């Protein structure tokens, strides 16, 4: 056997397809949706398509949980492209749960806008599969391909309401900004690739896209300027995705223009994907570059916390508000990421705190978006505080769910968001990030104004007399919708009081 053939043989042996069964399954369901559109009578499409998609997500979720602690965890698969870990398993579950909830929101919003179903769910399934791949990537090629799949999917989804000028404008903005961030990311990758392959430097490697090999190289050359610039560019590209300041400029407009389910998808899954990547990179190959990553991410965090909250103060459009408050949540999460690399010995569980925070954000934000989907009228981009006037009186259930969701996002005990913030704060304390901690505390206090301002609109203000808006809020929600919303609200309360296995898991980190 020649060395070339042996290398090919090794790669072939490491191609363990069952490890990617959930992602492949999602792809198959996505294709099946297209086939169903041809086969089914048109009347049934609207009801069947979402159900098939949701079944697909549930099946993928079940499969992922079945392989929760599979034997191949921690090993490189597919010639080093893929490496599944406990962390990537958590993120795969996260993305599946998030997409399930996005599908739920879509079943409420799409009929209101008379938008087609098939393409939406098709793209959603593909994007979810790509997100899941992203969380287990161990190689810049897979990282970039998966990330671009997600980004292209979002280009389509953001401008999905073709009749709405705001949606189209948001799509264009996202396209321009997304391309810029992809270009930054790619440029950074190329710099790293080039420098790590330089045979004059110690620890040079032919596999310089592989995270392990790249990390080994960077350990030998932590001060190499090109590597530092490359890493900074990669981090900036990711900062675009998570909407951290100074790369947040697209957030309010895109969040407002995008259809509500897509806004939820952007806010939760896209942001979470960025953090999954950040944790893989800064705790993996970039760990030797802490002299750059640490100050860079700290500045991102502090600016995001301040800008997100201050810019959200005068907002009255709730979708823009969710976008700007999302910027501040990115700030909190970045504090956790910084804590995880500032003193790795003191808080080994800081990444777990970030994951926990992401889950609490998922629950709180999805509860709020679920209510938004119900309250929204014909104009999906025009969702304002005034539309919430009298909500609690018209529908106590929506009011209660909104209160739980907002309270959790604001981080008020006994809701889950508080425990998320607590873990981040404690991690930051152990990592001695005094300044970031001070900024975070100010941010929490400032955020009370706009979060409770929203609650004030929903609970205190009387419904406006105009009949056409008042008719929008349904007094009776569907059974499935009520159950989903109530279980989201109860989950925020339960997770705030009882962390059970989550806490045990943090302790083992």
């Amino acid at each position, binding site marked *: 056997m020649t060395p070339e053939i042996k290398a090919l043989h090794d790669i072939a042996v490491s191609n363990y397809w069952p490890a990617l069964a959930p992602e492949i399954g999602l792809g198959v369901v996505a294709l099946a949706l297209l086939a169903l559109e041809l086969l089914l009578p048109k009347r049934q499409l609207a009801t069947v398509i979402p159900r098939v998609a949701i079944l697909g997500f549930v099946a993928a979720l079940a499969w992922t949980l079945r392989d929760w602690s599979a034997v191949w965890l921690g090993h490189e698969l597919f010639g080093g492209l893929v490496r599944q870990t406990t962390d990537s398993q958590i993120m795969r579950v996260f993305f599946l749960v998030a997409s399930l909830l996005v599908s739920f929101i879509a079943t409420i919003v799409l009929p209101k806008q008379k938008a087609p179903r098939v393409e939406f769910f098709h793209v959603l399934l593909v994007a979810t599969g790509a997100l899941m791949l992203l969380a287990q990537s161990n190689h810049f090629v897979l990282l970039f391909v998966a990330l671009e799949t997600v980004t292209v999917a979002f280009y389509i989804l953001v401008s999905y309401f073709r009749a709405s000028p705001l949606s189209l404008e948001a799509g264009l903005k996202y396209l321009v900004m997304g391309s810029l961030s992809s270009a930054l990311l790619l440029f950074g990758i190329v710099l790293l690739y080039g420098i790590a392959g330089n045979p004059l430097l110690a620890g040079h490697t032919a596999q310089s896209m592989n995270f392990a090999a790249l990390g080994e190289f960077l350990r030998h050359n932590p001060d190499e300027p090109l590597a530092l610039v490359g890493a900074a560019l990669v981090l900036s590209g990711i900062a675009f995705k998570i909407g951290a300041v100074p790369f947040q400029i697209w957030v309010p407009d895109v969040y407002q223009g995008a259809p509500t389910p897509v806004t939820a998808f952007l806010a939760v899954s896209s942001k979470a994907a960025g953090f999954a990547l950040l944790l893989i990179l800064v705790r993996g190959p970039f760990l030797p570059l802490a002299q750059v990553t640490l100050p860079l991410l700290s500045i991102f965090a502090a600016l995001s916390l301040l800008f997100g909250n201050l810019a959200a103060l005068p907002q009255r459009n709730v979708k823009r508000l969710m976008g700007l408050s999302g910027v501040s949540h990115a700030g909190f999460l970045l504090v956790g990421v910084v804590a995880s690399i500032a003193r790795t010995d003191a808080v080994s569980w800081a990444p777990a705190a970030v994951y926990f925070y992401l889950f609490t954000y998922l629950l709180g934000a999805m509860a709020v978006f679920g209510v938004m989907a119900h309250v929204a009228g014909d104009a999906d981009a025009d969702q304002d505080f005034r539309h919430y006037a009298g909500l609690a009186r018209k529908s106590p259930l929506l009011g*209660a769910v909104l209160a739980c969701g907002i309270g959790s996002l604001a981080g*008020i005990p006994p809701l889950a968001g508080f425990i998320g913030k*607590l873990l981040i704060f404690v991690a930051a304390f152990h990592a001695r990030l005094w300044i970031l901690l001070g900024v975070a505390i100010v941010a929490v*206090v400032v955020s009370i*104004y706009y979060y409770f301002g929203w609650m004030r609109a929903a609970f205190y203000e009387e419904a406006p007399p105009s009949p056409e808006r008042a008719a929008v809020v349904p007094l009776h929600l569907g059974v499935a919708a009520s159950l989903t919303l109530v279980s989201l609200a109860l989950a925020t309360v339960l997770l705030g009081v009882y*962390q059970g296995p989550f806490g045990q898991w943090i302790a083992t980190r």
Partner: protein
Amino acid sequence: MNDATLLLQLAVAAPLAGGLILAFGNFIPKRLCKLIAFVGFLVPLLVALHLWWGYAAAPKTSGYAFLSVTDLGLSRALGIALKLGLNGISLPLFVMAAIVGFAAGLVALQSGAERLKLYLMLLLVMHGGLMGVFASVDIFFFYFFHEFALIPTFLLVGLWGGRDRVYAAMKMTIYLTAGAMLSLAGLIALYAKSNAASFDLINLRLALAGDGALLASLQHNLFGLLLFGFGILVSLWPFHSWAPLGYGAAPTSVSMLHAGVLKKFGLYGLVQIALPLLPLGAQDWVLWIVWLALGNIIVIGLVTMAQRDLKQMVGFGSVMHVGYGFLGVACLSTLGAGGAVLFMVAHGFSVALLFLLTAQIHQRVGTFDMAQMGGLVKRAPVLAAFFSAAMLASIGLPGFAGFWGELTIFLALWQLSHLYTALAMLGLVISAVYGLRAVAKVFFGEPTPNHVSYATANPTADLDWAARIPALVLLAALFFIGFWPKALTAPLNETLTAPSSSALATAVPAVDATVNIVARP
């Protein structure tokens, strides 16, 4: 785990469970809802009285009786576990919270408020949180339970409040969050710096005793964080402006719970956590505490005198009196800390009683403006008697609980400085002036024309039993402690002079002898 520890858990769980049931109140008939709410308020009262009775004989671990631990998940990771128990400092406040909560619950049940189920539900959640605050040994849960009240307060004030309710609700929430975040930062810092790897107060005390004590500069910073964090929550001057506004706008039972019980959280935290754990830090801040507290007593006292609105006056009065509690803390002595706890209990009862009676007066004259009142004694002699008694109790006359609190604080303060004592005594004069003047304006003199016309339109008789029972409960508590303070001071004395809280005793050892004044009236 025995019956008494279960009872303690029950006292916290019962109101919360009641609140949870009422959350699904649409499916429950109104009468049953009221019954559930009543049980939710009654159970903590019965448990608190029972535990009070059995406290002396109960076996104690590290000074705490009725200890129980429940792990809710973060025990291994962060050392956070739901640890409930009572010591001599928390027992008096626990009992006070239960009694005031019961009275506030009775008032709420009779209030006939619109959307009563939601009202009761929020009030029950708030009450459950309050019982949890004083029953928690774990300082994380001490904080956690306090924050239970944040969203209910916001909704209760904003939905059922009076004048300026929305503004008051927003302002209260922002101030309370600011104070809470500062104190949370202080508590986390305490946890992170102590190396106890636990939020459990007993473990923290052990870890910080002797060689484990923190550096003086660190103690200075931590105590500052806690002082201002807790200070905002207790309406320490000049961070007080949310309190009179909020109490003025809030519905009666919320004012009773908030001003009477919830506000004691911060002072209690200083006495129970900050003083024993950070003795060196406390010494640095004594002058700050004293002067800010005197600001409460004198500046706010003068502001109180200038009030024309009865409810605002009671609200400002409650802010003013809080200054005495801080003075007790500032003495850094066993006597001062004990006086502060006694004072908190008395203040809780008397403020709650005043808010209750103020609402009753409003029902009869249709205004809070004291210039438009007068001569109410002819129509409502019992109300007049209650109100006068409540005012005298709040001034601190002998025979009422407040007397013992203020007396011990003044005695302790005398050891610190004669000047401060003299300045603090001015507060007695001020509160006597506005208190007695209010009694005179509301009840005596000739009825104003406005009053007469309102009275003929709304012929409400004297205090009815619905209002008289909660008022009697509160007044009886004030009298009981006024005549038998040992019921509270015996456990208090035992805890404060125990070697485990030696920080105070070593700080000012000479005061130990005077404790006997509190112990044996």
